[in-house]
């Protein structure tokens, strides 16, 4: 039995179909990256898994409807919009998720934000905020961590250390990870599985197998050139 199982998942807004008959399996311990051009339905798929939007089809976590097991999922959104002038400390923000102080302190030390405990949330840099958001998603010991474009707003050096952190979460915390990403090169070295999405699933499998120039060109429709460094956008 797959850890996460999606079968014939379709989402429509008014008369527009955003994703159609999407099916895939994720095994426990996988690092799964969803790639695809802008508007291809990546965020919509994640929002369907999280039960934030209505969908057709079935999504099961460990064989049971995912909606009944939201406590097993940690989520880091693409954009975290909030009033940056509001005086909320990092500690207070994490306390909104869980009052488990020992775990909070342990994760804060592990992710290098222990020194920011009393800082205002709004004063953090993009990279620091991203780490705090990941800790918030991990505070309830989820089995599946979902990250929606987690590196948007982080510089190139920060992106490399972010993927290093993901590998650490996957190996040390034994968490299954699903992320939406545009960094094809980082994905190819970090993910154990890639789902290529553009309304339908174009490919699904190990990066070495599916991330071919032909597949990427087909997925992104326009000419795609793999680069050794930098940021790739569809």
């Amino acid at each position: 039995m797959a850890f996460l199982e999606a079968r014939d998942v379709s989402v429509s807004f008014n008369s527009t179909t955003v994703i159609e008959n999407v099916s895939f399996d994720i095994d426990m311990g996988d690092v799964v990256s969803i790639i695809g051009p802008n508007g291809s339905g990546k965020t919509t798929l994640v929002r369907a898994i999280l039960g934030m939007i209505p969908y057709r089809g079935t999504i099961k976590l460990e064989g049971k409807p995912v909606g009944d097991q939201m406590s097993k999922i940690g989520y880091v959104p693409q954009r975290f919009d909030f009033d940056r002038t509001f005086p909320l400390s990092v500690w207070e923000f994490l306390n909104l998720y869980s009052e488990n102080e020992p775990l909070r302190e342990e994760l804060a030390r592990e992710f290098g934000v222990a020194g920011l405990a009393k800082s205002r949330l709004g004063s953090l840099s993009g990279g620091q905020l991203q780490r705090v958001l990941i800790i918030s998603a991990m505070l309830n010991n989820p089995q599946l961590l979902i990250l929606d474009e987690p590196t948007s707003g982080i510089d190139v050096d920060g992106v490399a250390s972010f993927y290093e952190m993901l590998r650490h979460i996957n190996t040390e915390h034994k968490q299954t990870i699903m992320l939406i990403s545009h960094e094809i090169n980082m994905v190819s070295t970090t993910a154990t599985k890639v789902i290529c999405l553009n309304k339908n699933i174009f490919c699904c499998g190990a990066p070495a197998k599916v991330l071919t120039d032909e597949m990427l060109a087909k997925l992104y429709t326009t000419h795609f050139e793999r680069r050794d460094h930098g940021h790739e956008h569809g």
Partner: protein
Amino acid sequence: MDELLRLLTYPFVQRAIVAGIFSGALLSILGIFVILRKMAFFSDGIAHTALAGVAIGLLLGHTPIVWAVIVGIFFAIAIYFLERRTELAPDSLIGILFTSSLALGVVLISLKSGYVPELNSYLFGNIITLNTAELRFIIPVSVALIAYLLVNYKKYIFICLNEELARLAGIKVERHKITLYILLAVSTILAIKMFGIVLVSALLIIPVSFGKLFARSAKSLLLVSICFAELIVIGGILLSLAFNLQTGPVIILTGTGLFAVGLVTRGRWRA
């Protein structure tokens, strides 16, 4: 100084200070969510809708404030549902509803023959005219609402910060939001006899705006905002009595003056 101490021995001054302390605490706590959710116009609008309720009460010969609370709750619920069911921007919706309610209040009051002396106290407030019965109503209601807000403070902070994440964390966001709308309506309207329809929303906004200048955490924001509200209410009552001025406006001006001092000393100015 002796004159001030003598003033404090008068029962009407004691009632005003006690009512001001409870209302100030309640409004400043609610103000945190009003500021964080950018609902200042909503609270101002709800206060203005009270006029229709006051007018109904005056026409029927019933307690105007009870009718004002009923009308306020009706408008709070109407705004909550219309925000979701229409494509109108919330500020347009609030603008339409509160001006209509205000207009209805004016029309209804014009139906009552003769001069309506109570109207002025509802428009601009008169905390020193509170009687013991009103005080006995204000204190338990304020205590109950403050207790509810403090118990749920964390949840409301989470909802105000990011609704989507709060929902995923298992918080019943919609239930808490409509409760906040109703509490805001009840608290604002209960305070109009003290601070006035036109001025009451200042008690929601000024203490928290001052608190934001100094607080580094949500906990310290709560403490600073409540202390500031108490300071301006007590200070404003005593100043208004000392200089024989109307109390509500003096409370607000005291707050504005102290906020201006805070802004100059701690303000984060744009470059």
